[in-house]
C-alpha cells in the first residue's frame, strides 16, 4: 500500500508540474511586464496566437524548433501591440487587453478556417517526444527571472520603473524603453506557453484552445506576488487541481465532467482569496507615464 501511495503521489506531482508549465511561463512573462508597470489582461490572446503560429509553422515545416520560435514571435506580436497602445497611446490597459483577446480569438479562428477549411478531421502536427524538455525550460526561466529580479541592475531598473517612474526618468533611465522591453519578454514567454499547449500537450489547434489559461496565469502572478519561485509554486497548485480533474474522470466518478473542469477555476478563485492583504502591487501599475504631466 505504501509503495502505491508514493507512486500515486509522484504521478500526481509529475502531472502537476507538466500542467504548471504553461502557467509558469506565461506567469513569469506577465510578472516582468507588471513589475515595469504594464498590466496585460490580454495574456489569453498572447498564448492563443502563440499556439496558432507554432501549430501552423510546425504543420508545414515539420520542424518543432521553428514552430517554437514562431510561437514565441506570435506572442510577441500581440504583446508589442498592447505595449504601443499602453505606452504610446496611454489607453486603459484592461480594456486594451480584453479587446486584444477578442481580436485574436476571431483572427485565429478566421485564419484557421482559411488555411484548413471546414474539414471533419482535425489536422495534426507532430509533437515533442521528450515532454520534459518544456519543464526544464520553465525551471530555467524561473531561475533566470529570480537572478535578474533580485541580483542584477536590470532588476533594479525594472523595479524602479514600476514603482516610481518619475524617479527613474530623472535618473536618466528610459521608462518607455524598459516597458517596451518588458512587454516583449511577456510576449515571448507567453507565446512559448501557448506553443507548449499545442506542441507538447495536444498536437492540434482549435478555437479557444487556451480555455482561460491566460486569465488563470494572471491569478497565479498575483498569488505568487510577482516572485518567480512564488509563481511556480502557485502554478503547481493549479496544475495539481488540473491533474486531479483528469484523474478523477478516468477513475470513473459518475458526475458530469463539468464538475471536474470547474476545478482549476475554483482553485484560481481560492488562490486569489489567499492573497488577501498581501497586495504589494508596483505603485505605478496600470498608470501610463507622462513626463510633461503637471
Amino acid at each position, binding site marked *: 500500500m505504501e509503495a502505491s501511495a508514493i507512486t500515486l503521489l509522484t504521478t500526481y506531482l509529475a502531472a502537476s508540474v507538466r500542467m504548471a508549465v504553461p502557467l509558469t511561463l506565461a506567469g513569469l512573462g506577465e510578472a516582468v511586464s507588471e513589475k515595469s508597470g504594464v498590466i496585460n489582461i490580454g495574456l489569453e490572446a498572447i498564448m492563443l496566437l502563440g499556439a496558432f503560429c507554432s501549430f501552423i509553422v510546425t504543420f508545414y515545416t515539420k520542424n518543432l524548433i521553428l514552430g517554437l520560435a514562431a510561437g514565441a514571435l506570435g506572442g510577441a506580436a500581440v504583446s508589442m501591440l498592447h505595449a504601443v497602445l499602453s505606452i504610446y497611446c496611454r489607453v486603459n490597459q484592461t480594456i486594451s487587453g480584453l479587446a486584444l483577446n477578442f481580436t485574436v480569438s476571431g483572427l485565429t479562428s478566421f485564419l484557421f478556417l482559411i488555411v484548413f477549411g471546414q474539414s471533419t478531421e482535425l489536422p495534426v502536427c507532430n509533437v515533442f517526444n521528450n515532454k520534459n524538455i518544456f519543464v526544464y525550460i520553465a525551471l530555467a526561466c524561473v531561475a533566470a527571472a529570480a537572478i535578474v529580479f533580485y541580483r542584477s541592475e536590470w532588476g533594479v531598473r525594472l523595479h524602479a520603473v514600476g514603482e516610481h517612474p518619475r*524617479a*527613474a526618468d*530623472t535618473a536618466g533611465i528610459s521608462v518607455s524603453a524598459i516597458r517596451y522591453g518588458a512587454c516583449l519578454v511577456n510576449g515571448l514567454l507567453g507565446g512559448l506557453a501557448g506553443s507548449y499547449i499545442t506542441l507538447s500537450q495536444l498536437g492540434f489547434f482549435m478555437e479557444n484552445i487556451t480555455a482561460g489559461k491566460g486569465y488563470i496565469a494572471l491569478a497565479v502572478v498575483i498569488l505568487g506576488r510577482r516572485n518567480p519561485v512564488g509563481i511556480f509554486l502557485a502554478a503547481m497548485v493549479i496544475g495539481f487541481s488540473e491533474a486531479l480533474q483528469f484523474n478523477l474522470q478516468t477513475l470513473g466518478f459518475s458526475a458530469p465532467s463539468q464538475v471536474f473542469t470547474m476545478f482549476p477555476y475554483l482553485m484560481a478563485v481560492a488562490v486569489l482569496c489567499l492573497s488577501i492583504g498581501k497586495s504589494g502591487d508596483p505603485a505605478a501599475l496600470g498608470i501610463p507615464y507622462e513626463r*510633461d504631466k503637471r
Partner: protein
Amino acid sequence: MLLMKNINKSFFGKPANKNVCLELKAGEIHGLLGENGAGKTTLMNILYGMYKKDDGQVIWKGSPVEFSSPKDAIANHIGMVHQHFMLVPTLTVSQNVTLGLRPKGYPFPNRTALNASVKEISSRYGLELDPEAMISELSVGEQQRVEIIKLLYRDAELLILDEPTATLTPQETKSFFDVLRRLRESGRSIIIITHRIPEIMEITDRVTVLRGGENAVSADTKDVTEEELAEFMIGRPLKHVRRTVSAPVSEGGLSLEQVSLVEKGRERLRDISMTIGNGEILGVAGVEGNGQKELAEVILGIRRHTSGKILMEGNDIGGLDTLRRRSLGIAYISDDRHNDDLIMDMDLMENMLLRYHCEKSFRSGWGLLNNAALCSAAQKAVEEYDIKAPGLKAPIRYLSGGNQQKFILSREIASALKCVVAINPIRGLDIGAAEFIHERLLELRSQGCSILLVSSDLEEILALSDRIAVLYKGHFMDILKNSNTDMVKLGLLMAGRTVERKDGQHD
C-alpha cells in the same frame, strides 16, 4: 558659468515662463525666488531636460546646449533635487544613488564595492547615511541627503535644489546650510529655488526674483533688503491680517482626551489631549509627517482612533462615522484638495452635492435630484465668494487652485457650523486667495466656531492662532499661548527638544 536667455514655455496655452533670463557665476550660491506658480520650477525643469522649452537659449560653460532628457543634463554635470523626492521607497540608499548608472560589471555589479564608495562620499561632505538602509525607513532630512549624494556621485558641478528646506526643522536647515557652504568651497555652484526670503538672505550670494512667469529683478544678495525682495516677489506691499485679541474662551467646542492611533504596529498619535473652546483658533505647528494628517482624520472619523475620547460640545462622538460627525457641524479643509475634497471631473453643482447628498432640500418628490435647487446653491456660492469659474457646468479641474479652495470653503461653511479642521489651507494659493481664506477663518472664529488650524507655515500659525500646539512624532510637545512667541523656541519644540539648547548642534 550658466546663462539662460529669453526662455519661453507654455502649457496648454498658458505661459509659465516669459522671456526669462538667469545668469550664474562659478562657485556661487544663487537663489531663485518667487511665489508659487511664478515659474521657478518650470525654468529649472527646462534646464534639467525634463521639459522642452518653446524658445530661448541655454549656454553652459560657454557653449549652447540643448538637453532633451535628464540624461543629457547629468552627462554635463548638472544635477537636480526635486521638491518631491525622486527616490524609490522599496530600494536601498545605495541602489537609489547608483540608479541609472552602469557601474563596473554591469548588469551584475559588485554591490559591496558600490556601498563603500557611497559611504565614502557621504562622510566626505558630512551627509552621514547607511548605504543599505531602505528609503522608506529614512526621515525626510535623511532622504534629502540621499538626493544630494546622488548628485555628488555623478560629479555634479551645478546643483539645482527645489524648495530644499520645505520639510526641515530649523536645526536641520542649519546643518543643511553648512553642507551647502562646504560644497561651495569645493568649487561647485548651487541654485536654490525657494519662496522663503530669510533663507535667501542667509545663504545666497546672488538672487533672481520671478513674478508671474517673468523676471522681476536680479541682484547681489548683500545689495537688497528683505522688504525689497518681498515687494519684488509679490508686486505690491504686503497686507497683514490683523487678529483681534479675543475674550477668554467659553466651554464646549472640540476636545480630545488622550487620543492615540496605532496603525500597522506603529504609533502615529500618542496621548493627544487638547480643548478648543468656542471662538478659538488652535494652531498646530510642526514639520510635515509628524502626525498632522492623522490628527485631522481621526477627528473627522476617516481613521478610527485606537484609544482615548473625542468630544464635541461635551458629547462623545468617537463612535460616529464620518457622515454623522459632519452633520454635527464639523467641516474639513484638507491639504490635498485634489484627492480629499473634490472630484476633479465633476462640475461645481455635483461637487456641491458631495457634501449635501443626503440633504432633503436637494431632492424632489420622486427621490430624484432637484437640479434647480442645486443650481441656485452653486450660483450663490460663486457670487458670495467671488469664485471665477468658466460656468457652473465646467469640470472643477479647470478652476485655479485659489478658486477651488474658495469653493471648498463655501461648501463647508453652512449655518450651525461648530468646528473647522483645516490643514495647510493656503498652500499653493496666490496672496489674494490666501488673504480671503484667512479672513473667512477669522470671521468664523468671531462667530464662535472652534478652529483647528494645522499648518507647516509658521507665519500662518503665528498670524491666526490664539494658542499654538507643537506636534512632534505624533505627540503634542507643548501648547503655548500665542503672544510674543519665540521662533527659536518653536523650532526647538518642532525638532523634538523640550529643553533649551544652544544652536548649532546636530540632531
